[in-house]
Structures are given as structure tokens and as C-alpha cells.
């Protein structure tokens, strides 16, 4: 529930390289802050309890579920969303498009952010490591085979360039 009965702290965080200071309500999730208040709508809510991975963002280098983290916990954190990954021209975006690693697209940003975090931490994953990394992301359209193809191709490109 949302009321004005609680103090609303200010937090400072960096999102896609930009510094923000925001007053946040104690019950806001990071997802609400990013999606509803910063207007970065790439992160999506598919489930409502950390089961689908569609709201994944990268926080201090790790893929996290933004619907399971309170915004007040993010003071001083550095966040990367799918918009930031796209604006930086990361080859994952192009690979996802070329390999049709999307259909309805609702879950796609969650896959892209999870994949980006994987490659940042493990630049040369095996196919099985990619599948395990993405096993927390649900896609009802069934695009799973294409994600592995896209991520491995980008891994190859980034590690040989």
C-alpha cells in the first residue's frame, strides 16, 4: 500500500551513465523507479514475484531483478538498463535483431540485460553456460534457441576484436 505516512528518503544513483537524485517512497521497487518514474520502460513486468526475469537490470555489474529490490536500497548504485545497452551500441542488440531472438518482444529486454551481464563477467561462455544464465528468463513465444546463437556470436565478436 502507498500512503504518505512514511518519510520519503532521497537516493542518488547512476542510471545509464546519468546521475539522478530522487525522492522515493519506501515501498517503491527499483522497477517502479526505473519504469514509472524515470521513464525507462524497457524493463518489463511479466510475472509479479521474481519468476520471469523480464525486469532484469544490471546493478553494479550484476544482473538483478528490479521488481525484487526496493528503490531505497539502491542509494549509490550504478544501474544499466536495456536502453543504456542499446544506446552504447552493444553488439547484442544487432545480434538479437538479426537472429530474430524475439517475437512479441515483451521479455526481450530482460534477456538482453541478462546476456550483457553474462558476457561482462564471462566473456567466453559455453552454450550450456548461456542457457543456464538465461534459464531465469521466461519467453512464452519460445525464442530460446535464438538467444544462445546470438550471445555466442557476440561473445566471439567481442573476444576476437
Amino acid at each position, binding site marked *: 500500500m*502507498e500512503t504518505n505516512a512514511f518519510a520519503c528518503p532521497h537516493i542518488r544513483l547512476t542510471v545509464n551513465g546519468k546521475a539522478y537524485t530522487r525522492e522515493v517512497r519506501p515501498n517503491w521497487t527499483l522497477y517502479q523507479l526505473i519504469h514509472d518514474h524515470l521513464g525507462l520502460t524497457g524493463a518489463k513486468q511479466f510475472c*509479479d514475484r521474481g519468476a*520471469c526475469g523480464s525486469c532484469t537490470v544490471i546493478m553494479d555489474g550484476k544482473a538483478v531483478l528490479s521488481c525484487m529490490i526496493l528503490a531505497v536500497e539502491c542509494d549509490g548504485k550504478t544501474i544499466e538498463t*536495456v536502453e543504456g545497452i542499446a544506446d552504447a551500441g552493444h553488439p547484442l*542488440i544487432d545480434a538479437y535483431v538479426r537472429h530474430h531472438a524475439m517475437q512479441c518482444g515483451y521479455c526481450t529486454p530482460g534477456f538482453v540485460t541478462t546476456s550483457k551481464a553474462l558476457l561482462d563477467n564471462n566473456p567466453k561462455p559455453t552454450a550450456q553456460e548461456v542457457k543456464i544464465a538465461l*534459464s531465469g528468463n521466461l519467453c512464452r513465444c*519460445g525464442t*530460446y534457441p535464438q538467444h544462445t546463437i546470438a550471445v555466442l556470436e557476440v561473445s566471439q565478436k567481442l573476444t576476437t576484436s
Partner: protein
Amino acid sequence: MGRMSDKEEQTMREMQDNLRADPFPLKTYTHIGKRGERRLDGYHKAGGRADYTMDVQLPGMLHLKFLNAPYPHAEIKHMDTTEAERLPGVRYILRYDHPELPPRASLGKVTGIYGDPPPLSRFAHFEGEPMGAAVAAETEAIAEEAVRRIKVEWEERPFNLDIMAAKDKNAPLSYPEMYPDSNYWNNGFFDVLTQGNVKKGFAAAGRTIEFEFNRRGHTWIGPERPCGVFRWKGDSPELWVKQQRPHLVKKNLSSWYGGVPMNKIKLHCLYQGASFGGWVQVPWNMGPLYCAGLVAKETGRPVKYAFSRREDFYGQSMDDGIYRFKVGFNSDGTILAVDCTTTFTNQIWPVFNPVNHLRENTRIPHLKGKIETVWINKGPAVPTRCEQLPASLSLTAIFSRVAAECGLDPVEVALKNDGVEGHDLDHVAVEKEKLGFPVIDSLAVCVQKGKAAMDWDAKWHPPGARRLPNGRMHGMGFTWTNEWDDSLGSSEMAIRIERNDGTATILSMGCDQGVDAENTYCRIAADELGLKLEDVHYNPQIDPGFFRMSPDSSTNLSVNGWAVRHAARILKQRILEAAVRPTAQTQRGSFRPAFPDCAPEDLDIADSVIFRKSDPSESVSMADFVQAAGQSGPITSTENAGFRWAFTEPLFAFSYHVQVGSYNPHNPRPHLTRQAHFLEIEVDTETGEIHIVKVVNVNDVGKAINPMSCEGQQYGGSVMGLSRGKFEEMIYDPVTGVMLNGNLIDYKIATTLDVDAPIDTILVESGMGYGPYGSVGIGEDIGTVMTGLVGPAVHNAIGVWIDDHPITPDKVLKALGKI
């Protein structure tokens, strides 16, 4: 401009005679059939810039949440909303007894079966039903809390969860408001399909088997929850809808709130977070939209409603039910008669007959398929990728059983019985010739390619005959059917050439379900017009007054493809005619044509350039030809002063297509294209787990206009179909009638690790489809057909039939006698 000429209309009708082979295909294809072409939606979706209805936020927007019934069958006797109203942030509470709420409203597509219920009912017919009250508040969280504070005095009623129990004449009524006499719909008669005489068939058959299976309730799980945003500007409504058929919203809305003129409705249909079925077109979904509109009217503020994930779980697939079969056949695998009776539940749409695919695709002479449907106290049952599920499940079960009984390879049994409406392939070959098609045996081609990819002949074995070194049992499954298309419908498509740069815009509202349909239509328009693909764009999210058949994920290419193709052909002719006509007619004369002394037939267009066929160097780009709109200068002052042209007439064309198509039980022509699917599994006899090892999908799509999109439906459909076959079932507490697993933790769908196997995707292009260039849709097929293939593969592995779907590990262990 505007209406097409008599000649154009006559040509359209000739070109759209889709009962025959396409008499007017293109001589060459540039973008049609090409791999690696751009996805129009790709960067939006991958980069997080695709907007969905759930993302819509408007200034001052209120959030609407509904009271959910705590009981599976109950009536509100009294409601007190005082505590809810006191909560800060609550702006409006809509109650079932609001004077503006009508007792009935047009809230769906098929009204004859379910009727028109009230938008906000006093009666609950399943646990979790959104009903009774809706709270609008500043935030979703406040609205949810306010709903919890509503005090309701309920009168609980007896309820039915079990299909067979609900059939008993002494069973309590499940839905007395709509069906006061019985739980049967229409006294038990829903549909019956007959061909030949089954008694005669069974008498002639050497062997007969009878069996029964149960398909448990499962659901669609669209990632974007059901939602909509509604606001009023004076008497004009503006809506954002998650909806497969946006035109249906306009149609229904025009009758709401005392009537709204169609031309005052401003509709947006953004990217759709998938639907997989007809839930968007039934009152369960339309009622909340009605309520959102009424609350928006009452409060003067925009209102967004969004189901919770749990609320979305209450809808179910229409194939859920009990299937009983009697099959007569000979020991060589020839099937002579099938008698099937099915009992389904809560059919809001007319489900397709379970023997329909046997009629459409086989030479089996004697068929009878009877459907009865009863009301129980669960949610609405609608097509869920898709209404062909019962027919697909039945065909797979019957052919697999007969093959096993005869000790035959199921592929051989399929080939032996392939045909059309009781006729054999010789008869079908004559039909193909008469209709101008190549005499290609589509199933034989699919089977040959699929067997090779699967190495079927080396891998297939009699049931329960192969234990692997890892201790698991090895199983192979095969099924097949026709390549169907949802082609009973209409489509309107228009194309305009933009000023200044000569690019083309396709105009027609639809919904983007992710099958890259818009790009498919752009390819057709580009190749037909002679434009570069990047010069053709299509945004179906805006309402230009034209509506295509949608969702395209329901194989609507065979309708929409004709409409866009003919619009492009009319438009091209108009461009070429404009190119040879004097332009810029004014009071004082005109400018000379772009191509003087030329006839339209002397010209052509390629790569977005108009050129003279006899001398391609004489050319002008589309951009230079069309000029900018409203420019001043030579048109008003220097006519005929050396300018070749200065203004070209607006270039626009529309077309339409209305089709009976193959979606009708009385097909205007036989189904000629086939699909075949192969599955290899391993069954762990210690745990009961089913491991997917390999999948091969072969689909005769007639002509692959967008090959990667077709393949997406193959591997994507395999993942979803196998997920449904292995995992998916809504569990209800039999004592309370409450759903126990309405969330994505307790209701399992497949992940990357659950279908961790190669999926070979093979496309066959026989040119025998209903669509342009001989194409046929593929959107629903594989996800539907693969659902039933787990059972035959498990039987091949362990030698025991499991007749209770989904086939979960506990059922495997039970079949093995281990629990």
C-alpha cells in the same frame, strides 16, 4: 482516387481467386523469400523502446483494480465500501449496482453461446472472477488495498469443478443466471460432424480399439497482462488496448454508454505482449474495459485497468476435457472408422470438432465426432494457440494408437491414410490438376525431409524396446496434419506514397503479436511496387480506418496477403499512369509529364526508380517524381517554363479481401499442404522425467515469404507445445474451488533448460496454399500440434499409454508401477 475502377475490381477478383493456383505470381522475387531482411520491430524490442499498453502512463491517470470472488460460485447479498472510500488516494468506486451499468452489454465476439453478460456482475461463477466492484485510485497499490477493505456479505452456492459430476442431472447448477435448466450447453448438443457411416466402417474393420484420455486445464500466459487505458475528451473516447482484434473494440464500444459514433473513437493498439488466443474477445476481458471507460467518464480522468498475473490465470484453453474414441482399422494400418465423443467445459467460442483434421487430411471413409459441453465453476475456455487443439490432439492419439496396435511405424500409417475428406491421393491429384496446382504429395515430401533430419529409420523402434546406456528409455514420436490457415475473414489494406521522398506507407490497423507480419506485408508491397524494402513502412498501431484480419499469429497471411498485394498492384499502375500524364493541372494549363510520349506499359519500377523499359537510363527516382506537398514556386508562376513537372497527384490505393477460406467446415477446396513433426526423448525411469533430445519440424508453407519468421513459429511453437505437453495444468482445491497455482512459480512453463535440444526447422514450398504466391499461414500450427506429441513419444519409450495430459513425472512413475 478513392474507389477502385470497375476494371480494377474485376482484376482484383480474378487475382484473388484463391481456390485455384495463383495465376499471377511475380516473375522474380527480390525481398519475398529472402533471409536476413530487417525486422521492423527489431531495434524497438531488443533496445527496450517498444511501447506496450502496460507502459502507457497519462497525466492524472487512475489505476483500476477489481474485487475478485473468493468463492467459485457465490452471490453478493450486501456490499459496504465505506472503509475503502476512506483510504487516501481512492478516487472512485464502481459498484455492481451503479445505475449506469447495464444488465447486459456487447462485450465480445461470439454472443450466441455465452450471451451478453453485465460488465460488472453481482454473481461469481469462478473463484478469482473480477466482479462486484472496481476501485480507481492514484496508484495500483492504493487500489489493491482499497479492494481488500471492501466488506461483502456473500451467499455461497454449491459449485462444480469436475466435468463428469457436472453432467449429472442432480448436480448443482454452475451458471444459473445464464443456464437455469442444466449445466449442459444447448441440452448437451454442441456440434456433431459425420462423414460416411461409422457402423458400416466398424463392421468392415478387422480390428477395433476404444480408449479415452483427459486433457487438463492449462492457460496461455501472455507476458503482458490483460490491460487497457481509457480517457475521454468531451464525448470522444481515446483508448489504448491490448487486443488481438482492435476493430472488435471499436464495434463493441460504439454500443456502450448509450452509443458512441465510430468516427469519434480514437484507438491505439501498441505492441502486444503476446496473447495466444481468444481471451481478448470475451466478456471476461471486455467487461473491465467497459468499467474503465465508465470510471473515466465519471472521474474525468484517464483510467488504466490491468489484471494481476493471478487474475490472468483463470482463463483456460478450450481443449481441456475428456476424449473418448472408438477406432476401426485393419492390421496394415488402414483406418476405416472413427467415432469420437468429447466433453468440454465453459466454451465461450465454438471449439472445433475433434475429428475435423481426420476429415480434412485423410481418406478415412467413416467419421463421427460429437462434442458436448458443460458449465463448471472455472474460468472461460477460449482458443489458446489454438481452437485446432482438439483436432490435433485427436489425430495424434488415433494414429499413434493404431500404429502401435499394428506394430507399424507411425510414419507409414500416416502415409497410408493421407487423403482428403475420405478420398485417396489419386483423387486428390486430380483435384490438384483441375485447380492448376503442381501434383506434389506434400506429406510424402515433409516426411522424407523430416525422416532424414531425424535419422528416423535408424532411431525408431517398437514401444519400450530401447534402454540407453545411461539407463533411460529411448522414445520416438511422430505426428502430422494439414497446414491450416485462419482464413475465414476480411482484410482491408491501403498504401500511400509519401510526399517528398516517395516512400510507401501501408495503412491498416492490426495487432503486432511478434510474428514479424508487418515486415511480411512490406516485402509483398516492395516487390509488387518495385520499391526498396527500406522504402516501405508499416505501423499497424494507428487507426487509419482500415483494418486487416488479425492477429497475424493466427495464420492470417492468406487473407491479408491478397489485400496488400492487390493494393500494391493498383498503386503501381496508378504511379505509371501518373508518370505519363501531364501534371499539375491549373487554371492556365499543366506541366509536361515525367515521361512524355510514353504509355504506362512502357515503364517499370525497380529499386524505387521509375524507368523506361526500352532505355533504363531514362529514369526518375520515386522521390523526384512525387515532389513535396504544398510547395510554392514554379507551380504558381512559371508553368511550361522548362520544368518537366512540379506536382504529382496524390498516389494512394486500397484493396480488400473477403474469404471463406479453409477455416470453414465446408471447405471450398481441399487442404493440400501438410506438416510433419518428429520428437526424440529419453525417459528417466527412476525419476519419471522426460528429457527432450531432438525435435524436427517440417512445414509445407506453400511459399515462404518471410522464412525466418516461419522458422520462429516452428522452434517457438515446439517450445510452447512441449511445455504444455509436459508441464502445464492449473490445479484447483476440490474442497474450496480455489486455484492453487495461479502464478509463474507454481505453474511451470518451459525455460531454456527444459527444451534443451536441437530443433530442426524445415520449410517445404509446394505453392499449394490459399494465400498469394501459393503461401499458407504457419502462426498457430506447431505450438498446437506439438502439444499432443509427448504422449506417443513416452509410449514409445516405456510401452505404456498415459492418458492424462500433461504427462508429468508422477504420471510416468505411476504408469511404470513405481508409485
